[in-house]
């Protein structure tokens, strides 16, 4: 199976969906002639032209709101946010309009829009450019949120997101764009709401999403080699819909869980997962569910310190050892 980058996987997903459905178009800042701020859309404008790949001015509320309106009439806009941090200037459109118009119209309208872009810290760009808002958006009934960790997941989830008839917000990671993974040449999709057990294990469940899932994989290797602990890594992939069964199944097997995320702790996805486990698998637990999140401060710029702000393998190991 060929290895391609996470970036290339997304690029292929976008290209394939543009070719498959004439209603799909890409819009965002620098997505066309500049080839994308992070080159995810590289070559697409040249290949598909002005109608399908559109450069937008720096005007997120305007163009994302416009995409919501266009999707109400059946178009399938794929809107790029240069950073998910910029979603905050389009928040009203993404929440009040995209998330609620189906409900408030009694089901007469739906919004098949995708909003995508990177949502991560760890790149020394300061607090305004390092937000990870998956918990905020997943809080809204009507929205779907997914956070792919690998190139394979990124391609399969992106294609599914574009075909979905509800608003799907896809949160990528600039630190992963250049990483390579095996991706099949044949077409495939990955359903939303299906977690992926990225490493099977029997002693403890490490439950994570996005880049934190990869951090957990590294931690699991060390745990096996140095501590003889066989950790299972469950990658949620999709936050809403959420694969609760996969989480519960894993915890029922291992009887221990650490929930890891790069988001801030307060009401983070980890809180939802911890609550789920305590409600539905309490009797299976041999230890309290532990949580590991980003250190609870705005993202610090200082490169040396930011490294420590996001969960590292050694932080995961520390949590595991505390309950093993």
């Amino acid at each position: 199976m060929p290895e391609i980058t996470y970036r290339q996987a997304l690029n292929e997903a976008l290209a394939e969906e543009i070719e498959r459905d004439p209603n799909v178009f890409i819009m965002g800042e620098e997505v066309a002639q500049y080839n994308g701020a992070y080159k995810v859309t590289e070559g697409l404008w040249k290949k598909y032209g002005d109608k399908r790949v559109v450069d937008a001015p720096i005007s997120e509320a305007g163009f994302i709101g416009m995409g919501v309106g266009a999707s109400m009439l059946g178009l399938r806009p794929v809107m790029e946010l240069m950073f998910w941090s910029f979603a905050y200037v389009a928040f009203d459109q993404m929440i009040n309009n995209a998330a609620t118009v189906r409900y408030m119209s009694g089901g007469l309208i739906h919004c098949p829009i995708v909003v995508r872009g990177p949502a991560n810290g760890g790149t020394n760009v300061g607090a305004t450019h390092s937000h990870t808002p998956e918990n905020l958006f997943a809080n809204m009934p009507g929205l779907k949120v997914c956070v792919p960790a690998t190139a394979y997941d990124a391609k399969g989830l992106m294609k599914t997101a574009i075909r979905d008839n509800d608003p799907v917000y896809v949160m990528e990671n600039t630190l992963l764009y250049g990483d390579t993974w095996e991706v099949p040449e044949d077409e495939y999709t990955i359903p939303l709401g299906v977690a992926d057990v990225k490493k099977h294990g029997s002693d403890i469940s490490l439950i994570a999403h996005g880049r934190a899932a990869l951090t957990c994989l590294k931690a699991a290797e060390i745990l096996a080699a140095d501590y003889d602990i066989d950790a299972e890594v469950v990658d949620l992939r999709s936050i809403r819909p959420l694969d609760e069964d996969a989480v519960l199944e894993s915890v029922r097997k291992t009887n221990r869980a650490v929930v890891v995320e790069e988001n801030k702790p307060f009401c983070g996805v980890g809180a939802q997962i911890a609550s789920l486990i305590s409600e539905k698998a309490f009797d299976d637990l041999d230890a309290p569910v532990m949580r590991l999140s980003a250190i609870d401060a705005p993202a610090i710029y200082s490169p040396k310190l930011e490294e420590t702000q996001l969960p590292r393998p050694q932080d995961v190991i520390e949590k595991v050892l505390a309950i093993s």
Partner: protein
Amino acid sequence: MADDVDSISKSKAGDFVDAPINKSLSKEDKVGFLREMLRIRRFEETANKYYSAGKMGGFLHLYIGQEAVAVAAASLMGENDHMITAYRDHGHGLAVGMSMNECMAELFGRETGCSKGKGGSMHYFAPDKNFWGGHGIVAGQTPLGLGIAYALKYHEKEGCCMCFLGDGAVNQGAFHESLNLAELWDVPVIYIIENNGYSMGTSQERSSAHGEHLAQRAEAYGMEWAVMNGSHIYELRDGIGKAIKRAHKECRPTMLEVDTYRYRGHSVADANATKYRTKDEIEDYKLNHDPLNLWKQQLQDEGLLNENDYKAMNKEAKQEAEASAEFAEQSNWPPESDIMADIYYEVDEQTEAGLTGQHFFNH
């Protein structure tokens, strides 16, 4: 406010009678406009009555005094012309052909409402009639209207989207972003500012920096604009008609500002409605600028309407409105199970995508 009233008084109901778009109107068309305006007025009065009697929840923003705008605009809509507005949406809904029953039942929160009782007064929708709401956040609908028009252009349809907003919406960022995109990309959207002089309780003078007109701001974007009297059907049809033609033939946007007035408060709950403006101001408006009175007089001047016809039409509108309240009151509340419906398309339709994972997190 005085300036605006002056500008309103400059034109007369009979102006623009010979405009090409009005010349082709039949007697039935013209009388029909009065019937539509009467229906909206009586609907709103009836809604107000039942709201005051505690039959409805939430807010009730009445369109009384602004009826000519929605009726004139709706009269110009072709197959590919669409409409979207803010929360003062009853008039637009009725004007595009929504029934009084579904509109009133929505106010009563019943399952027979246009949104099954899920949207309420501010959130009417009828996509089958090219009406896309009904939006509660001031100016939140302005990028949506742009998007609807963008989709028409994308599909190479000769159409437009009329996006209504109040004068209070012109200071929101989303509106300005929309104006820039509309002109930048030649999107066939028509922004129609229904200027009733007050953004809730704050007069235009206290809220908006502008030259002579709010619509003048369009100049900053190189966009065509015009101002018209919001009480005169002929003038509205002429002005909006020209904007529609520009959208259809040149695929270009327009900003229109219509001078209008609301008799009532911002909402029925606006206890200060008579405090931030004088009684004389309201009285003057009722006597000299009421779109119904003006149009009725115009029809009489043209020999198209006698008093008996008017009385019959008025009575019919009242009866229809009253019957709609009866219909609403007798309709069922939505079943409790309905709270969890119409959230996700894929779940409602039980598609494959709707079956994987947990979509809801009720404990």
